[in-house]
C-alpha cells in the first residue's frame, strides 16, 4: 500500500498547490535597486559562449549582454531592410554593387572584459575563422556557409567575400547570435573554460556561473557607456507555475511568459500593471505535411486540411500574442504574401463544406484518420489541440500523441512524424525558412542525418529548388523579394506546409523596471544595459 499512500500525498499536494493559488500575492515592492533578475524557462544554463552548441534561451539572454556583434538593429527591433542596421563594433560598412564583398570599419578603442585589451580585426577574423573551419563544431555554422573568406587589410578593417550575393548580409550573418565577437586571447588562454567565464566587449561581464544561474556585473569600460544597473541575475526556472509564482512574489523582475491561451489575461487579472514585452512576429508556427505518407500525399487531402484549419481563430485564442499566417513567412516581414494579393483559389478562406467535399473527392467521404505527435511544450500542445478540434469538424481525426520536447525533435529529425508543427524564430531574411524547410537538400532522413524539410517537398514532388537558386543569385533586395513571393504562391499551390500563426516571445515585466526602449520585434532576447529600477 506504499504506492497508494504516495499517490494520496501527490493528490493532496496538488490540492495544496491549488489552494495556495487562491492567495493574491501582491508584487513585493522595493527590492534592491542595484540588481535586476530575469527568469527564463530552462532547467539550467549551458554556457555563455556564442559559438557553443546546445544553448538555451537563457544562455542567449546572457550572451546578448556580454558580447557585441559588428552591427546591430535598434534595441527591440529587427532591421527588416538593409538601411535599418546600426553601428556597433563596426563604425561603418559598405558593400560592393554585386553584394558579394562587404567591408567593415571597426570602432577604435573598444576594450574586452578582464583586461584582455583592445578589440581588433584579429578577433573578428578569429571569431569568423572558427565558424568557417569545418573541423570545429560551432553553433549556427550553417548560417555562414555563404562566406567564402574573411580578410583584414589592417587592424581596423575586415573584408568578407561571399560566394553568392547577399543584400541582407548584415541580417543573415553579421547580426546573428553566433557571430558575436569573442576575444581571441581569452579564448586561446581559457579553452573550454571560456564557456563559463567568457570574455566579450558587452555592457556586462560574467562574475558567476552555476546551475542556479548566471550573475553579471556592469563592465565599466564598455565602449557605449556603463550599464544603468550594476548587477544582472539570469535565473533558470523551467516550471511555469514556479516561475509565475516567483514573479508574483517579486522575487524576480522579469519572467519568460507562458505561450498558452489565456495566460496574459490571467496575469493581468492578478496584477493589472504588469508589463508584457512581446516580439512581433516572434516564432513562425507552421504545420508540415509529410508528402510521402498517405493520405497526405493527396493534394486534395492537403487542401481539405488547409480549408479546415482556421488560422484567425487560433490566433484569436492567443489574443495579442499571435497573428494568423498566410504563407511561409510572417506577414510582418518582406517576402510574405497577404490574402488580398493572392488569386481566389490560393486564399483558402476557412470553409468546412469545401474541406468535406475535397475529402470525399479524395476517396474519404466518411472522414480520415491521421496519426501525428507533438511536443508537450505549452505552445506546441495548445496549437495542435486547437488544430485537432478544427480538423474534427471536417471529418479528419487527428490521433495526436503529446510527447517530451526533446524526443519530439529527435523523432521529427528521423522523419517519423506525419504532421509536425514546427515553431521557429527567424530574422527578416526570407531565404532562411525557405531553405531550411522547403529545399530538397534539407530533406529529413530516417537515419537522422537530414535537416528540417519535414514535408519532403522537392523530393516527393517537384518543389521550389529552381526558384530558390534564383533568389540566392539575386543581388538586388527588391527583386529578391519578388522572387520570394513567387515561391510563396507555389507553396500555397502545393501545400507541403501550412503557415498557422506567429506567436510572440513574451516577457512579463514588473512595472518598477524601465527597459529604456519599447520591444517591438527582434530575436527572443534584448539588451538590458538601459534597464533600471524606477519604483
Amino acid at each position, binding site marked *: 500500500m506504499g504506492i*497508494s499512500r504516495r499517490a494520496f500525498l501527490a*493528490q493532496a499536494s*496538488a490540492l495544496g498547490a491549488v489552494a495556495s493559488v487562491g492567495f493574491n500575492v501582491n508584487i513585493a515592492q522595493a527590492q534592491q535597486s542595484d540588481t535586476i533578475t530575469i527568469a527564463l524557462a530552462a532547467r539550467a544554463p549551458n554556457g555563455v559562449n556564442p559559438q557553443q552548441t546546445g544553448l538555451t534561451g537563457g544562455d542567449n539572454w546572457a550572451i546578448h549582454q556580454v558580447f557585441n556583434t559588428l552591427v546591430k538593429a535598434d534595441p527591440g527591433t529587427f532591421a527588416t531592410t538593409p538601411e535599418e542596421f546600426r553601428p556597433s563594433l563596426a563604425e561603418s560598412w559598405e558593400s560592393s554593387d554585386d553584394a558579394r564583398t562587404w567591408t567593415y570599419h571597426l570602432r577604435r578603442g573598444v576594450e574586452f572584459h578582464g583586461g584582455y585589451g583592445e578589440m581588433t580585426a584579429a578577433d573578428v577574423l578569429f571569431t569568423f575563422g572558427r565558424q568557417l573551419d569545418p573541423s570545429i563544431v560551432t553553433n549556427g555554422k550553417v548560417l555562414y556557409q555563404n562566406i567564402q573568406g574573411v580578410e583584414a587589410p589592417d587592424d581596423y578593417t575586415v573584408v568578407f567575400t561571399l560566394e553568392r550575393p547577399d543584400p541582407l548580409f548584415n541580417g543573415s550573418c553579421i547580426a546573428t547570435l553566433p557571430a558575436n565577437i569573442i576575444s581571441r586571447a581569452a579564448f586561446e588562454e581559457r579553452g573550454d573554460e571560456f564557456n563559463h567565464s567568457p570574455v566579450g566587449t558587452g555592457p556586462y561581464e560574467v562574475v558567476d556561473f552555476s546551475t542556479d544561474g548566471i550573475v553579471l556585473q556592469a563592465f565599466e569600460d564598455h565602449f557605449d557607456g556603463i550599464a544603468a544597473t550594476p548587477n544582472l541575475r539570469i535565473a533558470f526556472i523551467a516550471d511555469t507555475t514556479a516561475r*509565475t509564482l516567483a514573479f508574483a512574489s517579486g522575487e524576480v523582475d522579469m519572467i519568460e511568459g507562458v505561450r498558452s491561451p*489565456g*495566460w496574459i489575461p490571467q496575469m493581468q487579472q492578478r496584477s493589472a500593471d504588469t508589463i508584457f514585452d512581446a516580439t512581433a512576429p516572434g516564432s513562425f508556427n507552421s504545420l508540415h505535411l509529410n508528402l510521402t505518407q498517405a493520405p497526405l500525399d493527396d493534394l486534395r487531402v492537403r487542401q481539405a486540411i488547409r480549408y479546415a484549419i482556421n488560422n484567425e481563430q487560433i490566433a484569436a485564442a492567443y489574443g495579442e500574442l499571435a497573428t494568423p499566417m498566410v504563407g511561409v513567412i510572417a506577414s510582418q516581414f518582406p517576402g510574405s504574401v497577404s490574402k488580398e494579393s493572392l488569386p481566389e483559389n490560393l486564399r483558402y478562406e476557412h470553409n468546412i463544406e469545401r474541406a468535406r467535399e475535397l475529402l470525399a473527392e479524395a476517396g474519404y467521404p466518411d472522414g480520415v484518420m491521421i496519426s501525428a505527435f507533438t511536443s508537450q511544450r505549452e505552445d506546441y500542445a495548445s496549437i495542435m489541440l486547437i488544430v485537432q478540434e478544427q480538423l474534427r469538424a471536417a471529418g479528419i481525426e487527428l*490521433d495526436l500523441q*503529446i510527447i517530451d520536447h526533446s524526443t519530439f525533435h529527435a523523432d521529427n529529425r528521423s522523419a517519423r512524424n506525419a504532421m509536425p508543427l514546427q515553431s521557429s524564430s527567424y530574422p527578416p531574411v526570407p531565404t532562411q525558412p525557405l531553405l531550411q524547410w522547403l529545399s530538397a537538400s534539407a530533406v529529413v532522413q530516417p537515419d537522422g542525418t537530414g535537416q528540417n524539410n519535414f514535408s519532403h517537398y522537392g523530393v516527393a514532388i517537384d518543389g521550389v529548388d529552381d526558384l530558390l537558386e534564383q533568389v540566392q543569385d539575386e543581388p538586388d533586395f527588391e527583386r529578391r523579394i519578388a522572387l520570394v513571393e513567387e515561391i510563396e504562391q507555389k507553396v500555397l499551390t502545393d501545400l507541403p506546409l501550412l503557415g498557422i500563426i506567429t506567436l510572440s516571445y513574451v516577457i512579463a515585466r514588473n512595472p518598477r523596471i524601465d527597459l529604456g526602449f519599447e520591444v517591438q520585434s527582434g530575436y527572443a532576447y534584448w539588451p538590458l544595459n538601459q534597464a533600471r529600477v524606477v519604483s
Partner: protein
Amino acid sequence: MTALPSTRLTSAPDSRTLFVIKTVFLGNPVTMVAALVIFIFICVAILAPLIAPYDPLAQSYLTINIYPSAEHWLGTDQFGRDVLSRLIYGSRNSLIFGITAPFLAAIIGTTLGVTAGYFGGLVDRLVTRLIDLLLAFPELLLAIIIMAALGGGFWNIIVVLTIAFVPGFARVARASTLAVKQEPYVEAAISVGVRTPTIIIRHIVPNIAAPIVVLMTLWVASAIRLEAALSFLGIGTRPPHPSWGNIIRDGLNNIFGSPWPIIGAGLAITVVVLSFNLIGDAVRDVLDPEGGE
C-alpha cells in the same frame, strides 16, 4: 469489523456468496457509502452522453477559463471546454481501465500461478522466475517502460495495466495452489483417477478464488490510479479524449487560469480510489480473515 467466521473456505464457495455480499456491504456504513459512491460513478460513466451538459471536446474561444457558473458548473479550461463534461467523460476511461485490467490480469495471472503451483518442477521455476522479474519493477515503472515501447492508445493501456498486475495475481494463485494441493480432497481426487484439468477447475480454482477476488477489488483502485498517472505523464489516454489523469496534466499549465480541472479530477480520483480501497479491505476482511494485519 463485525464478527467474522473463522473457518477456511471449503469446496463450495457459491453457497456463501450471498453471505459475503451481505457482510461486505451491509456490515459497515462506511463500506456502504463507498459502494454507493462507486455505483454513482458507474452510472455517471454509463450515462455520460445523457448527463454531460456539453460535448467534452468542443472548444470555444469566447469562453476560456471561466469560473464556475450556472452554465458551467465547474467552469471551463484554457480551450473553453466544459470541465464538468470532461470529468464525466473522463470517468468512463478511468472505470473501463480500472475494471478491465485487473479482471484480465486475474484470469492470466491465475492461469499462470495455478499451472506453476500444481505442476511444480521446471514449469514452476520458469513461471516464478518470470514473476520475480516482473515484480522487480514497481508497477508504475513497468507500465512506463512498456508504454514507451508500445505507444499510447486504448488497447495498449489495457495491455500495459494487465501486464503490470499479472505477476501479483500469479504469485498469490501459486501460493494458494501449493496449499490447496496438499488438502485431502485433492489427494482423494487424484487417487480415484479424476483427470488433471477437472481437478484444477473443480477443486483448485474455487478454493483459491477468495484471495484472487480480494486482490482484484484492491487493484481496481490501483489500476485507476495507474491509468491516471500514465495519462498525467502523457503516455496514457490521448488528448483530446479526457481521462482524469490528462485533465490534471492539461490543468497544470493553466493553474492560474482555472484550477477547477485539477480540483475536480483530483477529487474524483481520490474519492473513487478511496471507495475501491475501502471495499477491497472489507472484502478481504470477510474472505480472508487470517490475512488481515
